[in-house]
């Protein structure tokens, strides 16, 4: 990066980040005083109101990538990447509609709490292992980004930056538990939104836009100049299958992300969870629209000034260093740091819940609540330490793409949750077989393991879109068909859903003690879904251009 794009006074950057961390630790300490049970630690006592939760959900979902990675990809791929990002706004609404409120009704800590009740211990171990792998990939990506942000802000070596940023981050998250993670995330969302949107107003004014008063949507007068310089900027570029492939990998994957589901579960009631979703959509839409305008302005900047942005993921900082005072640029980096921290907070709380509550519930079901909570703290701390250590020399496979991991989650966990909540016939062995087979198949046909047997090529394969279009529908179809077959084989009777398993489904849908065998128990609709899934599977296998 040219020297003129660096932050001219590192002490200003240091001051901003120091103030933010003092606030995060303060919130963490206050939250720790409210934490006295496992319900407090994993679910903030099921007490969070809609506005705070909406902010917290948005902050947890909007990671460091919102400030760095996505802007770089808009700079590289232009408008199609904007479309990819837009659809992520429906993740939490869909999650809440399809299973979030049902699992909130049973007071689950994580989605695996439901898996354990519905499918039993072996299936839970399989799903928990997949979720932990994905959470570590996720936290690792954030930790590396955080280290790079600190490196950039203060000019310290990457390894030093990782230690300082990692230890400081894991510290305040461990202290605060879910109360701290939620209140901090709500505050971080405010910081992130101001840092993303407000400085862009000043930049747009200098760039000559009359819409500087509302950066997210009022830059239309810059469009003719943009088209003159980059005629292809608004081209949709890819065929319909590329856009359809966003659904299996990037819509169905995130709805099974445990750290997002846990935010829904912290709500003070089922109804409050739904109201939180409305606030989430408004807050996240504002932040995401800010991201798109930065991507647009980055392209506009390079096209009209002749300057080159060598490191595309630093576009936001470069624009602010170029156009705004140092204090503003430092605050923007503070916003990026807040984005990383809110997501790491969610990731680590998910690891703590999956290990401390779900796995430990299998290994030591009779353990006292206070001991379970201590194990939760230990799991959170260990998860953070693992992410820091791996960030020194990250395994290439794990950091290739967080986005790729969404396809893995959609393949392995989404069918288990959705069919478990909505279909009484879902069979325990069918889940284990389909999740393991399709999960490993997804890894195998990706370009990251054996490139010669990859489905798709280039970006579509690297992001897991082509692979996901094969394994995700296959996983759903396999799970449904195997469930129907296994439930009718007397030798496999032990894996068939019991009356207790089926009663769980009616209860989480709010039917209380009113049990009805035929409810959520059809065969025709699942078979139709299987047929559609198999058609998508074969479509996904066709050569990708």
């Amino acid at each position, binding site marked *: 990066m040219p020297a003129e794009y660096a932050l001219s006074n590192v002490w200003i950057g240091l001051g901003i980040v120091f103030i933010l961390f003092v606030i995060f630790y303060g919130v963490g300490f206050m939250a720790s005083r409210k934490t006295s049970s496992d319900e407090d630690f994993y679910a903030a006592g099921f007490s969070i109101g809609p506005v705070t939760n909406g902010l917290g959900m948005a902050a947890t979902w909007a990671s460091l990538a919102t400030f760095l990675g996505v802007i770089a990809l808009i700079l590289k791929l232009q*408008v199609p990447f*904007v*479309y990819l990002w*837009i*659809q*992520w*706004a*429906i993740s939490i*609404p*869909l999650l809440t*509609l*399809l299973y979030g*409120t049902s699992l909130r*009704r*049973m*007071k689950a800590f994580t989605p695996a709490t439901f898996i354990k009740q519905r499918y039993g211990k072996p299936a839970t171990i399989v799903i928990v292992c997949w979720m932990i792998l994905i959470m570590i990939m996720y936290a690792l990506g954030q930790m590396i980004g955080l280290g790079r942000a600190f490196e950039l802000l203060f000019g310290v070596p990457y390894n030093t930056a990782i230690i300082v940023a990692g230890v400081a981050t894991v510290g305040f998250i461990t202290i605060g538990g879910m109360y701290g993670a939620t209140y901090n995330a709500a505050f971080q969302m405010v910081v992130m939104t101001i840092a993303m949107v407000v400085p862009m107003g000043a930049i747009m004014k200098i760039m000559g836009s009359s819409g500087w008063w509302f950066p997210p*949507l*009022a*830059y*239309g*007068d810059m*469009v*003719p100049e943009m088209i003159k310089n980059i005629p292809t900027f*608004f081209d*949709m570029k*890819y*065929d*319909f299958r590329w*856009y*359809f492939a*966003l*659904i299996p990998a990037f*819509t169905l994957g995130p709805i099974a992300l445990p750290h997002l589901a846990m935010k829904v579960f912290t709500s003070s*009631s*089922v*109804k409050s969870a*739904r*109201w939180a*979703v*409305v606030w*989430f*959509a*408004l807050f996240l*839409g*504002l932040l*995401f*629209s800010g991201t*798109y305008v930065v991507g647009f302005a980055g392209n506009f900047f390079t096209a009209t000034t002749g300057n080159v942005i060598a490191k595309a993921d630093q576009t936001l900082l470069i624009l602010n260093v170029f156009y705004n005072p140092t204090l503003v640029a430092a605050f923007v980096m503070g916003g990026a740091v807040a984005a990383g921290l809110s997501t790491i907070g969610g990731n680590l709380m998910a690891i703590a819940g999956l290990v401390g509550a779900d796995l430990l519930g299998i290994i030591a079901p009779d353990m006292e609540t206070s001991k379970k909570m201590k194990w939760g703290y230990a799991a959170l701390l260990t998860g953070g330490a693992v992410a820091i250590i791996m960030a020194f020399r990250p395994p290439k496979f794990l950091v290739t793409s967080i986005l790729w991991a969404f396809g893995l989650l959609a393949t392995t966990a989404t069918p288990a949750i959705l069919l478990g909540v909505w279909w009484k016939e879902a069979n325990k062995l069918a889940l284990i077989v389909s999740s393991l087979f399709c999960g490993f198949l997804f890894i195998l046909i990706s370009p990251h393991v054996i490139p010669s047997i990859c489905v798709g090529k280039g970006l579509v394969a690297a992001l897991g879109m082509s692979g996901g279009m094969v394994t995700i529908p296959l996983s759903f179809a396999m799970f449904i068909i195997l469930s129907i077959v296994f439930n009718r084989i007397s030798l496999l009777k032990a894996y068939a859903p019991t009356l207790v398993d089926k*009663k769980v489904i009616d*209860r*989480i*849908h*709010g*039917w*209380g*003690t*009113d049990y*009805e065998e035929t*409810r959520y128990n059809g065969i025709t609709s699942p078979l139709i879904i299987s047929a559609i899934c198999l058609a998508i599977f074969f479509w996904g296998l066709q050569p990708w251009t």
Partner: protein
Amino acid sequence: MKEKLYKKEITLTIVFSVLLLLVGHSASIFVLFPGLQQGTLWGFPVQYIIPILLGWFGVAAVSLVMTIMCNKFDDEMEEYVSLLPPETETETQTEKIYE
């Protein structure tokens, strides 16, 4: 009554899932029907700004209607459950883990 409630729950879930998919993936419609990629709104090409607007205000609007209708449905469900005969002791023990 319970059959009606069951059908209503399934209908609400399917309708709002489809609506959320439509507002989140509206860009696909412009690819499927390229003829729609004409004209501008607030200075932007429609195929750019419409998906952004639907991805923000569209998702918020669908979520708002979803919240109002699903919360109303919950009220109806709670009213139905409150009319059920008293639980047995075993059922009460199982019930404890649910709200």
